[in-house]
Every structure is written in structure tokens, then in C-alpha cells.
């Protein structure tokens, strides 16, 4: 893996985001052990201190917990906590930009609502 991370933002925050997404999507389960900082560093070709900083942030946020001499694990309530956080941001982060774009190009909000309410096929495309 070379250049997986965006050089323009702190890498530790990007690692933390990546792990949060894995927890949210259920790729990482409650009480599951995550990779060690050294495994992480070697895999992504980054400084181990950077990986450690990301893990520490997640511990501080209560999303990971440490078992001395064993490693880091996903906190039992992590997925719920993250879902609640993302729900709070959903309308500002996802809906507002979409509405702004719709207004810029002249799509009435009613059209958007209709589109969302149409049944979708397996690919997520409206039929």
C-alpha cells in the first residue's frame, strides 16, 4: 500500500476515520481485536507513532479499549455511539449540500422527494 492516505490531512485522523467506518459497517465487531500499531504501520507504510496516535484517539473517544499485553479491541457500544454521531451530522453533511446543488441546477425539492420514494432495484437505482 503506497499513498493510501491523503497527504493534505493528518494521517492519524484518516486512520481513525477508516476504523470508525469499519466499526459502523460491521466489518469490525464489538470485542474484536484490531491490528497492532506495528502491523498497521508496516501495512500502510506509515510511521508507527502515527498509527499509535490514531488508536489513542479512538481509546479517548471510548470506541476502543486496551487489554494490557494483548492489544486493542472494539468497545461493545462503539457501533451505537458512531451511529448516533453520524445521524446527528447526516442532515448538515449529506442533505444540505444535496439541496444546495438541487437549487443551483433548478431541481424542485418535490422531484427529489418523489425520486427517493420510488421503489429501487437491487443496484439502488430508481426504477
Amino acid at each position, binding site marked *: 500500500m503506497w499513498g493510501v492516505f491523503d497527504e*493534505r*490531512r493528518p*494521517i492519524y*485522523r484518516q486512520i481513525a476515520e477508516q476504523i470508525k467506518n469499519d466499526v459502523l459497517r460491521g466489518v469490525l465487531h464489538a470485542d474484536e481485536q484490531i491490528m497492532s500499531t506495528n502491523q498497521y504501520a*508496516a501495512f500502510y*507504510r*506509515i*510511521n508507527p*507513532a502515527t498509527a499509535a496516535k490514531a488508536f489513542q484517539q479512538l481509546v479517548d473517544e471510548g470506541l476502543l479499549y486496551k487489554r494490557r499485553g494483548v492489544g486493542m479491541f472494539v468497545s461493545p457500544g462503539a457501533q451505537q455511539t458512531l451511529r448516533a454521531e453520524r445521524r446527528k451530522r447526516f442532515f448538515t453533511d449529506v442533505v444540505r449540500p444535496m439541496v444546495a446543488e438541487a437549487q443551483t441546477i433548478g431541481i424542485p425539492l418535490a422531484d427529489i422527494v418523489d425520486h427517493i420514494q420510488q421503489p429501487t432495484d437491487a443496484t439502488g437505482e430508481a426504477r
Partner: protein
Amino acid sequence: MTLTITVNDLQVRYGETVGLQDLSAELPGGKIYGLLGRNGSGKTSLLAVLAGFRKPSAGTVTVDGLPVFENSRITRQVCLIRESGIVGDPTDSVRDTLDVARRLRPGWDAGYATTLIELFGLPPRKRVSELSLGQRSAFGVAVGLASRAPVTMFDEAHLGMDAPTRQAFQDELLRDFIARPRTIIISTHLVEEHSPLFERVLILREGRLLVHEDLDDLRAQGMSLTGPAATVDGVVAGLTILNQQQLGPTKSVTVSGAPDEVRRAAEAAGLEIGPVAVQDLFIHLTQPTGATR
């Protein structure tokens, strides 16, 4: 074992020319440092002083509390691989040079040296002077890593290396650093490619130390703001502007060290906020002092 490097009011002069000045820094052991700066900014002078190859004109440089210059107790713990991988007598073969390093370096790992020579595909019987630039650089890396010196420094170790070799170098460096933490200082112009390896970064400009901080903190500092010129000017008033560009009515400004209020003000004003790459920050920060922005 990790050793702390302490530099106090260091000055290096070459006759009338000042190579380094007012340079003070403490580098705790066990970290990978990136040493960045434009050509002629003093990177090689600093490395030469840290390795004891050159005597400070003024000020002090200590490793583990002891002066470096003419102090074999310390210089044996410090390994500097100079540009283009010249180590020892270039008319010696690769194998003979490794043999010399074995006798000079208390931490030398001959087995690891052989592994690296094979990994980089270097011919053991060939003279070092007959290697290509990329091969010499790889040879320098092999010697530097196999020395397992508590302070290991690479000056432009990547010169002439092709992409697969550079990647192998980064992998080996990280693998060995994780297994045996020590101080590693890498001077490089490949800012973007090498910066994920660094924990801290030192940036030199015209012989002075401009930046010494955690690389992720540096990454977080830069911000670009784009929008109508008057709005942008209002938001960035009083900030350190690193760069600005205008295209018609739209202006884009790169600022450094902006507080959160600025971000909020920019959001409220509808400006587009973007991050700034380390390489761009580096280019802007190291503008020669005489240049107009």
C-alpha cells in the same frame, strides 16, 4: 537503546559564508525525523555536524549529553550515509566495504547486510565505484540499516533509485525501525513520498531552523480558502498568508496556523475550504526571504 540529540545555538561557517546559524533543537531518541529544505538550505551541513564529520563554528552538538566531534564513543553510535551512498573507499568491492563496516560498527549485523544486498540485487564482487547511482544509493541504505546505529542518518538516500527500490527501502526501514527503535534522520526532496514515514519534521531555510514539529500537526495547519476576492480578503485579514492566486473574481488563499474561528467564519461566508498538502506547505514556507510573495 535510544539517544537524544541536543543542538544549542549551532553555527557553521565556511570562510565568510554562513552555512547554519542560531540553530537549537532537541531530538528525543527513537523517532524517525524528516529533514527538509531547499538546495543550499544547510541540510548536509547539519548532518555532517551531527555525525561529527565537521566541527561546529560556534555552539554545541551533543548526543546522549556528550559532544560529538572527535569523540569516538559517540561517533561509533552515529552512522551517516552521505549522498549517493559513498561509504569507505570506492575502489573496494561491495563485499570488502561491508567487511570494513563490520569492524567499525559495534552493532553491525552481517546476516542482515547480506539479506539487504540480495534484496537490492547488488553484485558483491563489484567495486563500489562501478555501481550505478541507484545501486550506490541502495548500497548506502544497506550499510546504514545493517549498522543498527542508535543514530542513523540518510542524506538523500533515494538518489537514482527506481520506484520499486524506493519502496523496498521504505519497507525495510520501517520493518527494522519497528523491530529496533532508534533515531533515524532522513533528508529528502521527495516530500510527498517520504512524509508518511516521519513522526517529526525539521525544515531548514537559509541555514536556520524554520519548523520543528510533529508532521501531522503541520498537516493540520494549512488551509486554503477560495471564493469571491472581497469575501476571502475579509476572512483572512491578519493571518499568515503563504500564497494567493486570483482568477477573475475568484481568489484562492493559502493560510497557515488559522484558528477555528477562521474556519467557522469561512464556512459562514460560504467559502470553499480545502486542505493543503505538506509539499505545498513546504514550498510556501521555504520561500527565500528576499522573494516577493
